[in-house]
């Protein structure tokens, strides 16, 4: 019961924060510098781990499907399998999880520290709404960067699959065959679905992390507690949303 009220309170303050930020959309052009900073933080600094993780996810996926599809004599379809799973599911989910761990935690830590050390109070008394300069640029940046990260993640994941198919002897499929299988069953819609998912996950993660950070109360010890909470809530939200968004987009 207490858990439920906590959940509803958290949900309520996130929605409120979203509405407050939306009121200031007109100020975005003036906040170009902050927006670009956040794009850099969200996009560029996450890229290396997105690349590494997607490469190995693609490889493992190809390896596992090579092993199981061998039995059906369907090895030539590995490309389609890796391609579709990445575009529709793995790419967006992996990128969102990395954004939650790498970017979301940093956002919560920064905003929670600003709250605890009264910087947020100072902004309020200066009639500079925190939603305007702390939240809006981050939400805008994640909307721009998520599709970019997801597309790069897809490409690297597909490439990881191709490498395994070529060099693992029990599979031994040439890249041409792999990529032609990948293209044959891939519709534009599959990639589009994935990008929409990535967009929704990234946006929700950043909103949750901002909201939990700004709602931190108490002393410096609460900063750590807020970061943990933000990451856990983000991960749960990604997976729960994944089910519903997938169902809705089918």
């Amino acid at each position, binding site marked *: 019961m207490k858990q439920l009220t906590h959940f509803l309170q958290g949900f309520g303050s996130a929605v409120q924060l979203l509405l407050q930020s939306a009121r200031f959309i007109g100020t975005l052009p003036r906040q170009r510098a902050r927006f670009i900073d956040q794009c850099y933080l969200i996009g560029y600094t996450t890229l290396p781990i997105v690349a590494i993780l997607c490469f190995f996810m693609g490889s493992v996926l190809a390896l596992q499907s090579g092993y199981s599809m061998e039995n059906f004599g369907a090895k030539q379809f590995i490309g389609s399998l890796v391609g579709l799973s990445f575009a529709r599911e793995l790419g967006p989910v992996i990128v969102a999880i990395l954004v939650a761990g790498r970017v979301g935690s940093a956002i919560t830590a*920064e905003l929670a*520290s*600003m709250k605890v*050390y*009264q*910087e947020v*109070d*100072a902004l*309020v*008394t*200066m*009639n*500079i709404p925190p939603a305007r*300069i702390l939240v809006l640029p981050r939400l805008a940046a994640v909307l721009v960067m998520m599709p970019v990260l997801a597309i790069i993640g897809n490409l690297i994941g597909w490439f990881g699959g191709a490498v395994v198919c070529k060099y693992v002897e029990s599979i031994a499929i040439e890249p041409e065959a792999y990529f032609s299988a990948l293209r044959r069953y891939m519709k534009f819609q599959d990639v589009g679905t994935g990008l929409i998912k990535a967009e929704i996950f990234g946006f929700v993660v950043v909103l949750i992390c901002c909201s939990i950070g700004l709602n931190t109360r108490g002393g410096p010890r609460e900063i750590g507690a807020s970061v943990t909470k933000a990451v856990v809530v983000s991960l749960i939200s990604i997976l729960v949303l994944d089910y519903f968004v997938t169902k809705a987009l089918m």
Partner: protein
Amino acid sequence: MNPPIHRNPITAVESPAVGVTIDGLTKNFGPFQALKNVSFAVEPGEIFVLMGPSGSGKSVLLKHIVGLEAATAGRVLINDQDAAAAHTLERIRIALVFQAGALFNSLSVYDNLALYPREHRFGDEATIRDKVMRALQILSLENSAQKFPSELSGGMRKRVAIARALVMEPQLMLYDEPTSELDPVMSATISEIIATLKDEYHVTTIVVSHDRELALGIADRVGILMGGELVFLGPPASLRQPADPRIADFFHPRIDLKNPRFKNLET
């Protein structure tokens, strides 16, 4: 009598100086009463010094004036506007110098000061630069403009916080222990700034301070809080020979080493 006029030193726009009315203010934190039915008024253009032992509710009272805390009972009015309403801060410029400074740690000293004029579009970057540098000079901080708050001493942070408030050109200026970490020369400078803002711009000022010299020197009126209650309200002159023993003790504490409290300190 007409209220004095506050003149914005940059835009030269004139507006009546603001008055603050604190009306039956009570604040509970759970079972703990931090403020108990406190009432007083600060006249437009007045310097009001609020004193009292630590933990008596001075900072909590200031937070009610800027709307950072919501009253359990009673209210705070700023020019007849409820301080708790969001639009009050949009209509009246109030600067609060936080007890701990509350500097923006990710911004340089210069950007800490420039944030407000930039966000509220005071003018182009050159105009803002002039204003920021002038405020830094007044507080002898011109060589620290590019430093970050983490590189400053406690007293310097306090001065940056005061400079940041000056740049806002507030109609109502609130200081939470502005001189607590400053040397005597700097403290005198702060007194001068407070007096100048009053004389030239009719800025209404509330200063929370333990500094008796500052209080007696610049205050038009003094209030003393003890345990959340207002125990004194009047002109500073009447504090020279306070009748109330609690106030006399506050200004001239007698430390009696025979007191059982100190038993464990004796060897």
